C-alpha cells in the first residue's frame, strides 16, 4: 500500500463507524468470539446473527450450495441461541471493543418490539430488523414483505427502543423503495438492503433440491447488480441513510454502493470465499481508491452517481 489518506469514517443514524464495512448478519455472528474476530480483522462494525425469542437449530444440512466464486445459496433456517443466551456472546464482543448492531427476527410486531428491547438492553449501538429472510417459515419476508408489514413492525420497535432502528428489507418484491418508505414513515433510523434473493438448486443426478429446505437465498457477486439497483431506487425515495448489502467482494464494489446512495455496507459471502482478512483488505483498498478519485472523505461520494443520471 502506498499512502493511505482518505477518511473512511462514516457517521449516520447516530452511529459512527471507523470504516463503512460491517460484518453482515448471519456470517460469523453466532458466537461472541467470532464477532470479536471480525472486529479485530478490521470490520467497521459487526451485525450479529439474527436472534429470535427461542433457541433454534435451523434446518438440517445441506444448508449451503456454492456457485464457483460468484454465488452462494443458503437456507440455514435462522439458527440462533435465542435472546436469553445471546447476551453473553455480545458481552465477549463488547469486551473486544467492537461496534455492534444487534439483529433480530420475529413472527409479529409485538415479538419484534420485545426482542429489540432485550437486544437494546445488552448495550448494542443499533438494532437491525430482519424483515427479509426469504426462506424462514413464519419469519422474514413472510412477516415483513409488504409496506404495511414493514410499517407496523418498525413502528412497534421504534416506539420501544431508544437506539437506532435499521430495517433490513427484501429484494424479493416489486418495489423495494416502497418498503424503505414504509420504514422511514414508521421511524426507522436507516434501512439496509439487500437480503438474499429467493432461489433454489436442483441436483439432476439425485432428482431433488440440494438444500434440505428446498428454497434458499442467493448471495454473493451474482446479486450485486440487484442490490445496487435496490439501493439506487431507495436512495431516490427516502431521506434516511441506506446501508448497502449484496455481493461486495472489492473496494470498487463498495464504492459502487456508496455512489448509488449507501453510507455504509455489509459484507457477507466474501468472508466465505476469502476469509475474515477481507475486512482489512477492503478498508485499505477503499481508502486508496477514494483518494485516487480525489475525494477527501468517503462520505463525499455518497449518492454522487445520481447527479449524472
Amino acid at each position, binding site marked *: 500500500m502506498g499512502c493511505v489518506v482518505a477518511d473512511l469514517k462514516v457517521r449516520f443514524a447516530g452511529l459512527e463507524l471507523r470504516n463503512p464495512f460491517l460484518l453482515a448478519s*448471519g*456470517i*460469523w*455472528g*453466532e*458466537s461472541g*468470539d*467470532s464477532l*470479536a*474476530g471480525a472486529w479485530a480483522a478490521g470490520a467497521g462494525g459487526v451485525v450479529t*446473527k439474527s436472534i429470535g425469542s427461542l*433457541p*433454534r*437449530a*435451523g434446518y*438440517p*444440512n*445441506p*444448508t*449451503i*450450495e*456454492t456457485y*464457483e466464486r460468484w454465488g452462494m445459496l*443458503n437456507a*440455514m433456517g435462522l*439458527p*440462533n*441461541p*435465542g435472546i436469553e*443466551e445471546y447476551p453473553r*456472546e455480545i458481552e465477549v464482543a463488547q469486551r473486544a471493543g467492537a461496534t455492534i448492531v444487534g439483529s433480530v427476527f420475529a413472527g409479529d410486531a409485538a415479538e419484534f418490539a420485545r426482542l429489540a428491547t432485550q437486544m437494546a438492553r445488552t448495550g448494542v449501538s443499533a438494532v437491525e430488523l430482519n424483515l427479509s429472510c426469504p426462506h424462514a417459515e413464519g419469519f422474514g419476508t413472510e412477516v415483513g414483505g409488504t409496506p404495511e408489514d414493514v410499517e407496523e413492525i418498525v413502528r412497534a420497535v421504534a416506539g420501544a427502543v431508544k437506539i437506532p432502528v435499521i430495517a433490513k428489507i427484501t429484494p424479493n418484491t416489486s418495489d423495494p423503495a416502497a418498503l424503505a418508505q414504509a420504514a422511514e414513515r414508521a421511524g426507522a433510523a436507516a434501512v439496509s438492503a439487500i437480503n438474499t434473493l429467493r432461489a433454489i438448486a436442483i*441436483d439432476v*443426478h*439425485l432428482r*431433488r433440491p*440440494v438444500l434440505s429446505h428446498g428454497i434458499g437465498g442467493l448471495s454473493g457477486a451474482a446479486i450485486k447488480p440487484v442490490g445496487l439497483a435496490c439501493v439506487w431506487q431507495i436512495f431516490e425515495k427516502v431521506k434516511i441513510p441506506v446501508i448497502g448489502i449484496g455481493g461486495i467482494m472489492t473496494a470498487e464494489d463498495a464504492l459502487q454502493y456508496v455512489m448509488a446512495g449507501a453510507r455504509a455496507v455489509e459484507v*457477507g*459471502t466474501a*468472508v*466465505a470465499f476469502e*476469509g*475474515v482478512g477481507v475486512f482489512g483488505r477492503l478498508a485499505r483498498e477503499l481508502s486508496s481508491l477514494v483518494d485516487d478519485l480525489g475525494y477527501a472523505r468517503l462520505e463525499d461520494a455518497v449518492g454522487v452517481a445520481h447527479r449524472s443520471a
Partner: protein
Amino acid sequence: MRTVVRVTERVEETPSTVTLRFPFEPAAAPGQFVMAWFPGDDELPMSLSYTTGPSKGITVKAMGDTSRRVQAIRPGSPIGVRGPYGNRFDLTPRHILVVGGGSGAAVLAPAAEAARLGGSSVVVALGATRAPELLFRDRFERMGARVEVATDDGSVGVHGFVTLVADRLLENERFDAVWTCGPEVMMRKVVDAAASRDVPVYCSMERHMKCSLGMCDACALGPFHVCTDGPVFSSELLARVPDFGRFHRDPSGRRVPF
C-alpha cells in the same frame, strides 16, 4: 462444487463402523474432511480415512440416527461429496505417538500411513469399548506401527481408557509429536499429559458443522472455526481456547458443556 458419486465398496470395519469407498478426484491430505451428503438425509462432516488416489473413503461410526442409516448404504448408492476441507497433519515429526479413541482412528490411520511412508516411526495407542471395536488395528500394524491397545471392558489390552496407555508411553519414550482424535475429554487429557513433558499435541477437533466454509459460525471454537482453521489444532493454539474440553455448541449455537 458438490459431486455426486456412487459408493463402490462397503467394508464393515468393526461391529459399529463401516467404511464407504467412492471415486473422488480432488487431491486430499490426511487430516482433511469432506461434507458427505446422504440424499434424503443429513449432510455430515466426515474425515477422509483414505486420502490417496482417485478412490477416497470415509469411515462412519454408528452414533445417532443418520450415521446408523448411513451404515446401511450399499455399493451403487449415490452420495454427495464436497471438499476436501480443512488443514492437515504436519508430517515432519520423526517419532510420533498416535492416540485414537472410538472413530478417531478414521482420520489417524491415513496420517500415520503417510508418516510411515515418509520414514517416521509411529506408536499407536488405540482404544475402544471392547476388542472387536478396535478400529484399523490391522491397518496400523500393516504399516509397521507399534500398536498398544486399551478396552473399556478389558477384553484385550489395558483395561480402561486409552489415556492410560498414552500416559505410560509418554513417560517411557521421547516423542516429537502426539496426534490424537477421539472424545474431546480424552484429547484434553492427552494434551495435559503431553504438556508436562513438553511434547506438542495435534488434536483433530469436532464441532457441529453446516457450511464448512468458515462462514456460518456453527463450528466456532473460541476464536477459531474448526472447518477452516482446523480440524487439526496444536496444543499451543488450544491453550488459547477456553472452550477446549469444556463446552461445544449445539446446532443453535448454544454452549453445551461436555
